[in-house]
């Protein structure tokens, strides 16, 4: 049988349309290529 309380914890509020702008600003767009570039830069500095 379903444990309602634990099940309901999985539900998250949907992103409201008015909050899209903030969500875009807060988005982390770092990808694997950026990470690799950072690593290479750090290695180059050393």
């Amino acid at each position, binding site marked *: *049988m*379903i444990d*309602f309380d634990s*099940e*309901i914890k*999985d*539900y998250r*509020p*949907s*992103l*409201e*349309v*008015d*909050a*899209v702008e903030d*969500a*875009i600003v807060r*988005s982390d*767009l*770092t*990808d*694997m*290529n*950026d990470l*690799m570039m950072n690593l290479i830069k750090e290695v180059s500095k050393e």
Partner: protein
Amino acid sequence: MDYERRIRVIANSYYNMGLEKARLRDLTGSADCLKKCLHFNKYMTDARNLLGLIYYEVGEVGDALVQWVISKNLQSEDNRADYYLEVIQKKKGTMDLERRAVRRFNQALAYVKSESEDLAILQLNKAVEDKPNYVKAQLLFALLYIVREDYQKAGKAVNKVLQIDHNHPKALYYKSIMKETGTRVKPEREPEKRKLKNVVSHRQMQDDDVIIPPSYKENTRDQAVLNILAGLLLGAAVVFFMVMPANTKSINDNHNKEMLKYSEQLSQANQKADLLTQQLNSLESEKKTAEDSLASLTNNSDSVLAQYQSVIGILQAYKKDDFPSAVKIYADLNPGLIASADVQAIIVEIKKDMAQKGCPILESLGDKAMEAGDSQSALNYYAKCIELKPDSWQAKFKTAVIYKGMDQKDQANGLFSDIINNSKDETLSAKAKTERGF
């Protein structure tokens, strides 16, 4: 830069997987692949646009907008995201509807967490009504109905989710839970399949297919209303055709009995009225007789009372030695109306006296009446004289002359003949012969 190529290859692979899963409507799996793709290469515009499209398809319009706007920022030219954003913003009311549905879901979630499930269901109902493909709302809706053990409604919501996202893990989980309880959730068929329901199907049967007998029909709300209406009509018909006639007959019988009773009473009343009318007529007749009798006793000059008064008048005239007045009153006396034997005895005495002395006075009164032209009074006086003294030939002659004058020839001739035959007065007999016409 070998790693760049490798990263690109990995990203492409994830994108391809995501695209394939999206085509198979495994939206959750597709979204996972696309997210991984973007972790490797954020510039994979197609992957980002497809991720936005998947978010939009499952009702998460906010997340979709985020992905499309970022996509637009990362690649401003020749980007499919332009089209998606334009379509959403161009269509009137779309954004308002999306915004409202999301707010309702969030509000419902807040209600659930504050243990107000009824209010949450109301909000979710409106949300999925406006936006049936809102997967999170459908799933929360299903969860609330599973907890309430209303598996029919929960099953419908779960099926709707699985139509949108065939392998949604939570929907599959809820479906498995309902299967454990023995609920068979009928999957909603596609409209195209619904059209073909009467066509012979050759497809292979699946494990969860349910064979429904053709005669079986699931009761919908409309059918229930129709059934209730039909029941009401049937009940009204039974009352109208079976109960009403019996009641009407009973009422008519009672009415007829009452009518019969009233008719009998009316008949009795009529008989009584007839009897009373007869009695009234009889009494009126008796009253008239009594009134006539009283009138005959009192009012007329010929009345009984008048006769007694005449006798008294004669006696008073005797007392005053006024014999002519006594004779005059006697002339109008009718002794036959007097019943009293004592008074009759008095009248006999009076009559004897009148026979001896009254006749000349009566003749004299008759003559005076004749002189006055009152032949009727003269006849009375003469007749009274003849009654007292039958051989009063002068009185008879005068009477015969009066009758002759009144053109009563028979009576006149009878008297004239009596005089001619019986009178010893030859002069009078000659006059009678002359009058008689011999």
